[in-house]
């Protein structure tokens, strides 16, 4: 088992897992932004989406409707840019219709994840970012188990600031401790919203909770990301005019305000991973 995994993962320098106990806090959006920042920094990056019943990565990267190709050496991931610096793999590429539900219990999900790890030819990558579903169940136990001997660099934990979300995310931190997955740090997403009419900042989902939690658990706080509707719009745009897109999302993202915020977070992650 470990041997077959090792062949296709051998060319990958760093593996980062994006986790959260809570759904809808922005795991996929953080995974995407981390990847975009890393690509902009000159890295080759892959994203593996192991959220099998709710895959969001294809949409996030403007790749709705794309298909995976089979080569003699395995599955070829889907590239998001012309220069082939950003590629990804998701069950979303394997569905006949994007509205099809994947109604699977644990064992089938685990087998699929294993196949993703063993059969996708990632080639040489600086970073592989693994996006996960919420919770601490089959997908999480499996990915931790399968990667045990490969020693992933660690997990980036995503939360929103409100207590209800933090309660679930604390469980995820304890999960990481239990399975001995190093924690690279905590990102607080959806932290504040600046009203476009009056510039007043409203904390829609409270603020500061992520930082306090990071302190309490003795892990690094990587930063907070404000709610910025422009990210949704950028993503929709890149899905719309797919044909005219050359380095589209990477380019428009790096010109946005979010890039400045997120680049700092990326720098902190890189610093942790490199040392």
């Amino acid at each position, binding site marked *: 088992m470990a041997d077959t995994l090792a062949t296709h993962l051998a060319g990958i320098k760093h593996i980062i897992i994006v986790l959260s*106990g809570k*759904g*809808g*806090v922005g795991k*996929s959006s953080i995974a995407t932004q981390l990847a975009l920042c890393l690509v902009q920094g000159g890295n080759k990056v892959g994203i593996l989406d192991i959220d*099998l*019943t*709710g895959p969001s990565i294809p*949409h*996030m990267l403007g790749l709705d409707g794309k298909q995976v190709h*089979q080569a003699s050496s395995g599955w070829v991931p889907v590239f998001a840019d012309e220069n082939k610096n950003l590629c990804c793999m998701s*069950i979303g590429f*394997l*569905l*006949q219709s*994007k*509205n*099809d*539900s*994947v*109604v*699977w219990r*644990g*064992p*089938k*999900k685990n087998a*699929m994840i294993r196949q993703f790890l063993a059969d996708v030819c990632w080639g040489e990558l600086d970073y592989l970012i693994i996006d996960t*579903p*919420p*919770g*601490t*169940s*089959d997908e*999480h*136990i499996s990915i931790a188990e399968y990667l045990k001997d490969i020693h992933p660099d660690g997990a980036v934990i995503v939360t929103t600031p*409100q*207590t*209800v979300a933090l*309660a*679930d995310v*604390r*469980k*995820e931190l*304890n*999960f990481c401790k*239990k399975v001995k997955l190093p924690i690279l740090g905590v990102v607080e997403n959806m932290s504040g*919203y600046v*009203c476009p*009419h*009056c510039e*007043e900042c*409203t904390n*829609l*989902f*409270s603020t500061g909770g992520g930082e306090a939690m990071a302190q309490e658990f003795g892990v690094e706080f990587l930063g907070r990301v404000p*709610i910025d509707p422009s990210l*949704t*719009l950028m993503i*929709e745009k890149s*899905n719309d005019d797919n044909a005219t897109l050359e380095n589209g999302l990477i380019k428009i993202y790096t010109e946005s305000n979010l890039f400045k915020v997120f680049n700092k977070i990326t720098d902190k992650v890189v610093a942790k991973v490199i040392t």
Partner: protein
Amino acid sequence: MAVTDNIPEHCPGPTTEQAGKASACQGCPNQNVCATAPKGPDPDLPLIKERMSSIKHKILILSGKGGVGKSTFTSQLGFAFSNDESIQVGVMDIDVCGPSIPKIMGLEGEQIHQSLSGWSPVYVQDNLGVMSIGFMLPNPDDAVIWRGPKKNGLIKQFLKDVDWGDIDYMLIDTPPGTSDEHLSITQYLKESVIDGAIIITTPQEVALQDVRKEIDFCRKVKIPIIGIVENMSGFICPNCKGESIIFAPTTGGGKKMAEDEEVPFLGSIPLDPRIGKACDTGVSFLDEYSDSPACKAYLDIITKIKAQIKD
């Protein structure tokens, strides 16, 4: 290369005598599970049916997407129903890995008591009982690191071993997705009949994508859809009263999806930071902030749901 190709062509079916043993089962990832699982009808189903016979209406709260407000909606619906003292309400939280109901309903730190007739739910008030794994953890931060079968076992116990008493409305809050919890609850309640599912979404396409899958799931397992609720639609700045769109409905939002899928649209609830605050402190948003536009939206939706579920 579609996902359905994964099922062996001559799969004998997971509940048949041949499950896991037929030649088609060779190499199937489910082979071991199929071969070792007990065959024939589940002996617990009659017990569940017996227990559930005292529960008039069972409503699932579903969404393919996480963090869209399933638990918030469930709890507010529970609070609203229970405002009528003659109505008995139960809330069952089957989100095993991320239970939010205890906190949102102000029951954090409560424990479950065992009696001769089974586990007693925790009561918010006389006519509002709640069951969640959150009441069973020694430490609230403990992770519940369970694979499918253990989660299914707990859900079964919630249905079989909890002394709910006579209940008019049972609201079942679920985790996101279309996996073990969702399959199990529908299977276990097959004979006791689920009235239907309320599907929660937020307006942006990335959420709708997952929610369409949940609608597909409901159709596959034949659960009627009571309707779609769009949560977090629009935000009114408390300072200047200007409206802005946080999660842009670039593809038409929940309403358009409901039309496309031909299911009822129950309404949109605007973002109000006080909803989140009410959840964090475990109080009823509808009682505390009855002046909020979100409160009116909630009540309109609840009226529609009541109208759909007749005795």
